[in-house]
């Protein structure tokens, strides 16, 4: 009964979405506001319908109704309650429903919020928004139905249980963050297309969606960072990013989105590159769809699983339609988008942003190419190949280096033109200071790799230049009598985008610092130890004290090793890596144990494919230098994005006033 109600809600939502598309199109065609308003209302109604459906699915999960196939797949009796709730996104069908829920929430909010001040765009925004929703709701309603009954007549006594990997806190929050990012990024596209179709091609669509884009981008970034941390904490292979096709599928839209966030500033300042910005927004959207598809269908791993599932061809069809649709409108309006303004100097900020975009596109194309190459190879030669980290490191490494340097240098440029000499002069002492840092690394820390030295040099230069930007602003305010701290906070408050952006750059540079350390200088060793034996790595020595075995919550069987750790001879406590086995699903996990310091992580796992007895086990140890700077940088990054995205009261007043004016003007035309 509950399942039937849930499915009815999904079907109804689908029908409403179709209606919204038709109504908005008709309303635009006939210029009849009533139809458009009806379309808006129906778009908003989709949200409560999906809330109901999701709530019902969660109810089924909590009740443990194993007659529903999805519940059987991802839930089980012994699972703790909170996991039964998060199982909503623990599998394919539920995840899609959840995706739709978020999409509906964003779309409804965007349409309601902009109803008054973007009236000309509304019919088309509603139409395009409905198109996306029709596809994804259709998928849930007709292809991957989470409310479908289990096949055969027999209701199983217990479910399979959630994949053990998904039972850890990091993994619980990682999919929702990514989904929020993906669904959020469809909103700028919706309004961009609305601008194109309606012909209202000024900057309002950008200003409208600017905060949406930033917030969606924030969630996507968070999802990526959390994914890395989770891989490090739970998957137990000592690293956090493997250039895996699934990782890349989420990273590629992020690249397009980041390029857009930068390039859009050229349009706002100088009214240039409007066509290119449209291209970027469209690209971001298409890559989000493609990324969602890759992540759920496993197409890269096996072309055959892709084609033989119904989801594959449907995704391809939708992508094809939206590509043609977007290309058509962009080409049709491109003349009206062209700008009379010119690039005046190769040393201008416009040129710097252009270079930024060029390099981002380079990384995007390279990553896209590497991720998809196995399919291409299989199609043309019939042979499967792997494109692994060596490719990405070799191609993307230098490109990232250029971006990191650009991060520091670009703020030195000015709009229209700047003098190359002044940029050169501004670079002088940071470059020398960075050279000193590199020198210290080389002589005192024995860093031999020139790649690492160059990377550290670039990070230092850009870090100094960015901090300098803060310093210049603070000093100017202090000259007018402000105290340093209030100068800083006022600086940030009054120009959130710029200084939020600088904080984001600092965050990225700190992350780069950590990445360089952990990538170039990781050490590892593996050894089988008997009780009482020791092994050393770096300045650490580890003594194996024994393994104990005990049951855990759920149907867990835990084997935990006890290791005494000393650093340079001084005892620093105990590490307890363990293996967890969910006895029913038979899936073993190795959970590492870490000792984290500013300088490095000492990271140990108990290898579970070698026999573990109470006094003998095999261990793998990693020394990851500077890795905690990656997470610290991540925090700074998020902090910066929050500053950049924080609503500005001054901004709000302007918008509210504009809205009131427009409402007063518009009312006479529509009331009758």
């Amino acid at each position, binding site marked *: 009964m509950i399942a039937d109600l849930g499915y009815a809600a999904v079907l109804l939502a689908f029908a409403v979405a179709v209606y919204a598309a038709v109504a908005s199109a008709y309303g635009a065609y006939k210029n009849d506001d009533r139809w458009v308003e009806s379309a808006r209302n129906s778009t908003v109604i989709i949200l409560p319908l999906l809330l109901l459906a999701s709530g019902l699915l969660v109810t089924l999960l909590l009740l443990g109704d194993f007659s529903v196939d999805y519940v059987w797949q991802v839930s089980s009796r012994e699972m703790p309650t909170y996991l039964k709730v998060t199982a909503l996104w623990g599998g394919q069908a539920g995840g899609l429903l959840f995706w739709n829920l978020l999409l509906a929430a964003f779309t409804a909010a965007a349409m309601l919020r902009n109803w008054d001040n973007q009236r000309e765009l509304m019919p088309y925004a509603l139409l395009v928004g409905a198109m996306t929703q029709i596809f994804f709701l259709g998928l849930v309603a007709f292809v991957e139905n989470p409310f479908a009954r289990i096949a055969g007549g027999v209701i199983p006594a217990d479910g399979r249980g959630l994949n053990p990997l998904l039972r850890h806190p990091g993994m619980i929050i990682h999919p929702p963050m990514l989904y929020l990012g993906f669904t959020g990024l469809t909103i700028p596209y919706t309004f961009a297309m609305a601008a194109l179709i309606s012909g209202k091609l000024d900057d309002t669509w950008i200003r409208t969606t600017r905060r949406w884009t930033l917030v969606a981008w924030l969630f996507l970034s968070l999802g990526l960072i959390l994914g890395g941390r989770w891989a490090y904490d739970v998957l137990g292979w000592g690293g956090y990013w493997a250039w895996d096709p699934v990782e890349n599928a989420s990273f590629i839209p992020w690249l397009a989105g980041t390029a857009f966030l930068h390039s859009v500033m050229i349009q706002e300042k100088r009214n240039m590159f409007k066509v290119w910005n449209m291209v970027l927004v469209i690209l971001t959207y298409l890559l989000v769809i493609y990324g969602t598809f890759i992540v759920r269908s496993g197409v890269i791993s096996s072309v055959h699983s892709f084609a033989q599932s119904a989801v594959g061809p449907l995704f391809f069809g939708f992508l*094809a339609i939206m*590509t043609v649709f977007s290309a058509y409108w962009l080409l049709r309006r*491109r003349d009206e988008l*062209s*700008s009379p303004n010119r690039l005046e100097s190769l040393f201008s900020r416009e040129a710097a942003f252009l270079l930024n975009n060029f390099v981002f596109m380079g990384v995007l194309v390279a990553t896209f190419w590497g991720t998809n190459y196995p399919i291409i190879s299989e199609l043309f030669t019939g042979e499967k190949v792997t494109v692994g980290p060596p490719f990405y490191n070799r191609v993307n490494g230098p490109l990232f280096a250029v971006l990191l340097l650009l991060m520091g240098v670009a703020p030195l440029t000015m709009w229209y033109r700047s003098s190359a000499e002044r940029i050169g002069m501004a670079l002088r002492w940071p470059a020398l200071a960075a050279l000193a840092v590199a020198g210290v690394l080389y002589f005192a820390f024995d860093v031999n790799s020139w790649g690492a030295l160059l990377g550290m040099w670039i990070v230092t230069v850009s870090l100094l230049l960015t901090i300098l930007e803060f310093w210049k602003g603070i000093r100017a305010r202090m000259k007018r009598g402000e105290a340093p701290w209030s100068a800083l906070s006022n600086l940030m408050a009054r120009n959130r985008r710029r200084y939020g952006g600088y904080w984001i750059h600092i965050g990225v540079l700190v992350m780069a610092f950590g990445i360089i350390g952990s990538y170039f200088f990781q050490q590892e060793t593996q050894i089988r130890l008997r009780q009482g034996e020791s092994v050393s790595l770096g300045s650490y020595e580890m003594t194996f004290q024994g393994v104990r075995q005990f049951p855990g919550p759920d149907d867990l069987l835990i084997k935990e090793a006890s290791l005494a750790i000393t650093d340079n001879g001084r005892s620093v406590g105990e590490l307890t890596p363990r293996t967890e086995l969910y006895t029913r699903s038979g899936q073993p996990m190795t959970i590492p144990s870490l000792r984290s310091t500013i300088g490095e992580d000492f990271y140990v796992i108990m290898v579970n494919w070698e026999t573990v007895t109470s006094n003998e086990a095999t261990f793998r140890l990693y020394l990851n230098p500077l890795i905690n700077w990656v997470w610290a940088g991540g925090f700074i990054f998020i902090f910066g994005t929050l500053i950049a995205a924080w609503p500005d009261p001054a901004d709000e007043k302007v918008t509210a006033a504009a809205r009131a004016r427009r409402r007063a003007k518009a009312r006479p035309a529509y009331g009758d």
Partner: protein
Amino acid sequence: MNETITTATDTNTQNEAAEETTERGSLRWSTVLVWGGVIALLALFGWGLLNANEGRPEEGTVAPDFEMQFFDGYQWKDLENASLEDMQGQVVVLNFWASWCVECRVEADLLESTWRQYRDQGVVFLGVAYVDSEQKSLAYLEEFGITYPNAPDLGSEISNEYKITGVPETFFIGKDGQVSDFVLGPVNATMLQNEIQTLLAQ
């Protein structure tokens, strides 16, 4: 990227005239480029989709030919290598397995006993070790006392041809070299007998 087309601020009438003729005349290069690119990309992926749909060899089609380099002691007719074509005229039971495959053990005894039953009636059992190490493969064969021809799938070529998605998988090939049936997972006795007898009767 953005085309910098001169518009209102430009008072150069010659330029404007030139633009107009370009528009009214042939297609602009940017239009051609964009549509060309879009169509090419979509066509590539679409063709890929169709190709991928091919899947494993279907019933009624000719079984793809392949070469086997037999394990020592598991040759066919004392030959070091042979191809599927060499066996035309015989009924072939082609079984993909691996020493690390738990399900394969379920059918191992059955396959061997059925082989012994039919070996003199024009039936060949072929075992292909899928992505397996030689040592472990030989150990597995010894464990179950397998005597029918077995070979490693070098370079995973045979599994690629037959679009293997896992093990065990078994293909039944008739005397005419056409695929007659396919089983995913371990075979059972009744089905094995039925298939062989049907094919022998042809």
